[in-house]
């Protein structure tokens, strides 16, 4: 049975991250990542069983701290047209699972449902997926050393990934 304190520490961390993104506080968000972070969102394909449906050779995201920083800096300019006015987003984080095997590098998974609206006539996009995190304890809280997101579409139903997952 996983320690209750740990459960809530992880859950609070993931929920706090969602809040940062949903309130466009990208600077604080960036600081959640370790300098050696790998942030990847592979492409999903539709294949006959039992062929694998995740293609890691190529992805929608394949970031390091530097490239995440560049994206964040860009969002800070007044010419990031695609997200200004910003989308209204909401990141529903559920189904959290913790593998406490290595306390210094916690393997955590969750499900993410991302609601996104540009505020236009009742239209919205939904993105769904599973996230695989590696969290490193960092005085009292955590830092994200790795994230891999498996999206549930082979053809994304949103005009761009101007939003982080």
């Amino acid at each position, binding site marked *: 049975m996983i320690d209750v304190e740990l459960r809530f520490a992880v859950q609070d961390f993931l929920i706090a991250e969602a809040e940062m993104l949903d309130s466009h506080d990208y600077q604080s968000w960036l600081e959640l990542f370790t300098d050696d972070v790998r942030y990847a969102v592979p492409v999903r394909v539709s294949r006959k069983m039992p062929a694998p449906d995740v293609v890691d050779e190529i992805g929608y995201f394949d970031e390091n701290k530097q490239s995440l920083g560049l994206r964040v800096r860009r969002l800070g300019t007044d010419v990031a047209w695609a997200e200004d006015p910003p989308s209204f987003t909401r990141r529903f984080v559920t189904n959290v699972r913790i593998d406490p095997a290595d306390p210094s590098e916690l393997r955590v998974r969750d499900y993410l449902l991302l609601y996104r609206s540009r505020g236009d006539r009742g239209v919205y996009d939904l993105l769904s997926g599973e996230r695989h995190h590696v969290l490193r304890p960092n005085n009292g809280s955590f830092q994200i050393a790795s994230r891999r997101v498996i999206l549930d579409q082979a*053809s994304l139903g949103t005009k761009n990934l*101007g939003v982080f997952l």
Partner: protein
Amino acid sequence: MLKTQSTVDRLRQTVLPDEGRIPMFIYTDPEVYALELQQVFGKAWLFLAHESELPEPGSFVVRSMGEQSVIVGRGEDGVIRTFLNSCRHRGMKLACEDSGHTKLWRCPYHGFAYASTGEFMGTLVGAPYERVAYPGGLDRDALHLIEARCESYDGLIFATWNLEGESLAEYLGDLRWYLDILAGRAEMEVVGVPQKWVIPCGWKFPSENFTSDAYHTATAHAFLAKLNLVQGVDFGRDGYHIDTGNGHGLGIGVHPEEDGSYFPAELEDEYRANLDSDQLALLRRVKNFHGNVFPNFSFLIPNFIEIAGQKVSGMMLRVWQPIGPDKIEVSSWHLVERNGPDWWKNKGKAMYIQTFGASGMFDQDDTENWELQTQNSNSALARNDEVWLHFEMGMHQDPMPGFPGPGAVFDGKYSESAGRTFYRRWLELMLEDA
């Protein structure tokens, strides 16, 4: 075409590329779109895949021609063919996956089976009882899969439903000299699979952008300057705009001779083996390279950027696949030299993903524009007067003399010449036997 006669008349009167004027409604009008599916996508050569996606006999991918699902497969005999993904019995799809490998397509509905070369194999291997169900037997030939005309150039696989028309080589015409530089300079391969995503925009907006719009970079992608990612930038002007005269177009950004080639020295020999001296000379100066093959196949070598001391660029192929009058599914392939050094492959891929594709900072800017142009196009349809778009850039400019490559070549990328030709070609097809 009776029902769209009024549309045909409106097109004839309002699509005026020679005057640099294009009416807004044509980008998303449902009737224009219905006509495009028949006249443009039903006749043009359409890009489907790169040969590296079909490594061996039996390999296949499922792609689209217009809105039709097709199977592009390498037969047991090694030949690449394109078939309508529709069983000859009752029209069930034979392949429901994105890609795979097979000797035989057996229809899941009643079991009609087809060889990887398209021949009908009878139902015996599929469902039992052919002799009972069809005592007279079935006409093998009549049941051969519906096959499109399929040809390749520089490893790029195209197909068309126009079985009698010009060959792919003729269709590409002068563009070939430039495609050699893009896709024929070395043995190329697709990295993984294409990214795919859906954008609520008409297919012609991105197509025209890649054909002749070097001008938007300075504004649409202004973040480059804001973040000092480019210095003393020419905002994408320096170089050449090329109008090959048949609807295709491209822009080539160049850097000073003295900088020397930005492409990996490790590949120098392979390049030399595949390109003539003029092509090679041009490749050595390439800073960026974008274009579009009529109607909706684009390519791009993004502006090189320096990553940890090495200049790299992650090239890509694009198909702006219409899935309705005002909606497209983008496919974006990352293509790289198979024999390239690791640093080139790795940094190039990272650069590609970080700047282009669904999450790409450049694509975000562009999709925003194309989506909102589309909204305006949808509403323009109902106006009692036309909303004209402005296509006059470089209208009275003369091609430069003495450029080694073919086509009308303009000095500096700021010209919409190929864009105007794109719409000339488009109109021609739309009005054909109307």
